[in-house]
């Protein structure tokens, strides 16, 4: 039985910035470090964490049946084929949204806390009920954003809500970083984003085409393509979560030729 389980909400405000991809890859990475990890799909409206993990065809029960006491938790949990430390608790059907309350989420998470070191909650986009329910059950949060004005604005809104609900710590992951665009000042710089959001940066994730391939295959990058640029980023994030002091990734080695510029783009200001 795990005692000091960390319950982490993975949220963003804006949709499509990479929450589910982060949840899946972080789940795999933590599990590989020997940590028992549950990923909870709280996006009942548009569930797809099962898809990304390649577990869709093995779902029998969902969080819904657990809450309605039609099955036990361990019957609903889907263990990952390769990483046995990782389990998915699938989302129930979208109609759950009509009756689900913050206390229901808490009940589910309390059950998961008894068995796992980490509970990662894949949050739906937006700041409405789905987000509020998921937040009610969380202790800490990772806010995912992209180097785009609208994504940063929405992240800021979410951070305000997390702060007023005493979620701590709140850390930032900047996803879809394109060193070339940043160097050319076509994208917000890392400093631009951290300046506004005033959060500790847990990590950067590089833009990586292989993510699309891995999504389609239902195999997170960190599972079989550990040398791809984004996979390394996810692995580093998992290690930093565990308290390891890993410097931010140097895109020089990942996308050759941009190293010198990258150092500069840490400082450039654009708006």
């Amino acid at each position: 039985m795990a005692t000091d389980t960390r319950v982490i909400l993975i949220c963003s405000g804006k949709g499509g910035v990479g929450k589910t991809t982060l949840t899946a890859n972080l789940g795999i990475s933590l599990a590989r470090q020997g940590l028992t990890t549950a990923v909870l799909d709280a996006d009942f409206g548009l569930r797809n964490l099962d898809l990304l993990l390649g577990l869709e065809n093995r779902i029998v029960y969902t969080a819904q049946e657990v809450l309605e006491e039609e099955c036990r938790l361990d019957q609903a949990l889907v263990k990952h084929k390769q990483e046995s430390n990782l389990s998915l608790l699938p989302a129930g059907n979208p109609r759950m949204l009509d009756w689900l309350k913050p206390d229901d989420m808490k009940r589910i998470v309390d059950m998961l806390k008894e068995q796992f070191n980490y509970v990662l909650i894949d949050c739906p986009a937006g700041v409405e009920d789905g987000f509020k329910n998921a937040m009610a059950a969380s202790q800490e949060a990772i806010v995912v954003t992209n180097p785009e004005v609208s994504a940063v604005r929405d992240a800021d809104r979410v951070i305000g809500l997390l702060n007023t609900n005493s979620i701590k710590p709140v850390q930032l992951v900047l996803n879809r970083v394109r060193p070339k665009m940043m160097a050319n000042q076509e994208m917000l710089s890392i400093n631009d984003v951290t300046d506004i959001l005033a959060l500790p940066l847990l990590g950067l994730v590089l833009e990586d085409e292989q993510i699309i391939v891995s999504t389609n295959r239902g195999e997170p990058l960190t599972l079989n393509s550990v040398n791809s640029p984004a996979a390394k980023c996810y692995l580093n994030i998992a290690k930093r979560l565990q308290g390891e002091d890993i410097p931010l990734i140097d895109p020089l080695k990942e996308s050759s030729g941009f190293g010198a510029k990258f150092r500069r783009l840490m400082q450039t200001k654009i708006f």
Partner: protein
Amino acid sequence: MNSNNQKIIINIGDINDPKWKIGFKNKLKMLRSNNLEIDSENIDLSCKDISEIIEIVNQYDCKITGFCSSSPKTIVSSQSLGYKSQFSIENNSKNTSDANKKNLTFSKTHFHQGTVRSGEYLESPGNLLILGDVNPGAKVSAEGNIIIWGKLLGIAHAGTKGNSKATISALQLRPVQLRIAKKIARGPKEKPQLGHAEQAKIDSEEIIITPLLTTQFNS
């Protein structure tokens, strides 16, 4: 009885007192079907506390129009639940009515520490001093002056009740929009000079921005 559109300010009492709900419910019983502004004085309320208050108020067929409090935490919580929220300045009289609010001068300054984030809204009936940034998407307003020890990137409105002498000062003044009394200006496009605090004020019917001189705070 009060008519439905009359606004009543109700004090919730001390939420830390285990009996506060009873006292609060008793007050609501007398009011049934009214629009209420909740005054929480200096008590810190979380979103959870406020949700609880909303639930109680709904039981008595009342409607909350907004919150006022001298606790920044309460203001931010009620803001984030979508209620109009106003800073009140602590005064000795328990009975905070609109009438005695009017008697306050701008000499009172309200203090907020921390970043004001997108979607948040701070309002002060006096001056407003913010230690932190006002981010894009956030809005701050005051009947008096606004001083921001940080960056102003959102919207600021000073002199909301028409005082055209009001000013807006910030370490970096790069707002989306500035308002002083009835004047509106869009933020400057060019980047500010680093190392200069700046002040916006009305000069011959226009909002202008000038480097801030320390002596300007004395007036």
